[in-house]
């Protein structure tokens, strides 16, 4: 359980370049009054990020499109969407999605 000084320095350097973009806009929150078009653009950011991450996760397996739609990620993803649509509950969707994924994985033998 040792920490090499050079590794610690590298970690701190990475923190430096990471924390600036994370924190700067938050600290300037009071001064930021962007025009309506920028506000609208930023308003699309969460939806875009969520959708990009979700579909990457369920469509791509090991970086490629699987040859068949009978695939645990895709089917469990569609099941999750269905549960989310029906219940509008994050908790139930996560439970349903995990269960669907586990069952499909065992059943399809992946």
């Amino acid at each position, binding site marked *: 359980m040792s920490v090499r000084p050079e590794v610690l320095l590298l970690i701190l350097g990475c923190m430096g*370049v*990471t924390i600036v973009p994370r924190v700067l806009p938050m600290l300037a929150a009071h001064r930021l009054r962007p025009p309506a*078009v920028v506000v609208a653009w930023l308003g699309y950011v969460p*939806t875009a990020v969520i959708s990009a991450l979700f579909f990457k996760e369920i469509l791509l397996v090991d970086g490629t499109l699987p040859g068949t739609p009978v695939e645990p990620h895709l089917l469990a993803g569609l099941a999750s969407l269905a549960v989310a649509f029906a219940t509008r509950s994050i908790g139930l969707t996560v439970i349903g999605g995990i269960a669907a994924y586990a069952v499909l994985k065992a059943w399809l033998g992946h």
Partner: protein
Amino acid sequence: MTELIGGFRAVLAGARAAVPVAIGYAGIGFAAGVVGAQAGLSPAEVTLLSLILFAGSAQFVFAELYVGAPITLFVTVFLINLRHLLYATAFAPRVRGIGAPGRFWIGAQLTDETFSLATSLLPGAVPSAAWMIALQMTAYLSWAGGNLAGAVTGGAAGTIGWLGVDFALAAMFAALLMLQVNGPARQRLAMTAVAAIAAGTMVTLELWHPHPLNLLVATGVAATAGVALFPSLARGPAEKPA
């Protein structure tokens, strides 16, 4: 005293809201810890990395690049994490009522998942700094714990069947997507279009060349398309912040 109880309630509510992220982070954090250990990092270094950096894709990159030139590592990590600039800018209007230390803390712990979750759960401003920090701390500790466990057990554990836990974040994103597509019909149409363009761009980019920057590009393309395709929604003062 009532203030104290109110604060405690906010902490509990924030921590509870973070549970889906915490489950997913424990599983993926474990995998990241295994990768770090296999790259020659000690369990203490892996844990410090996640406590200090707290950025999943950047940690995978760190494990890959830390033996090379530091400048390559720093530039790559900077570019990968540049998307947080977008998140923090989009999130800033929701924390105007919070003091500078609270805003600093909230910004420092923003991730793809905590940003997505909080913007989907909240119609507007963050209810309190305590709520948001509790949400993020829960995710943070789960991530760091997963990293430590993965690094300690390392290769010995091999690939543990996570009983579908590695699907937790995907399932959460399905729910968040449904929560995002709301409001008047035109707004729903715009959000659906943005979601479809983001997904199409992301999957195309990943098939062509997998890279952590693809998320930033796909997000930028989709948001720009949203503004261009629905100019009426991008005008006027009645625009909602998210």
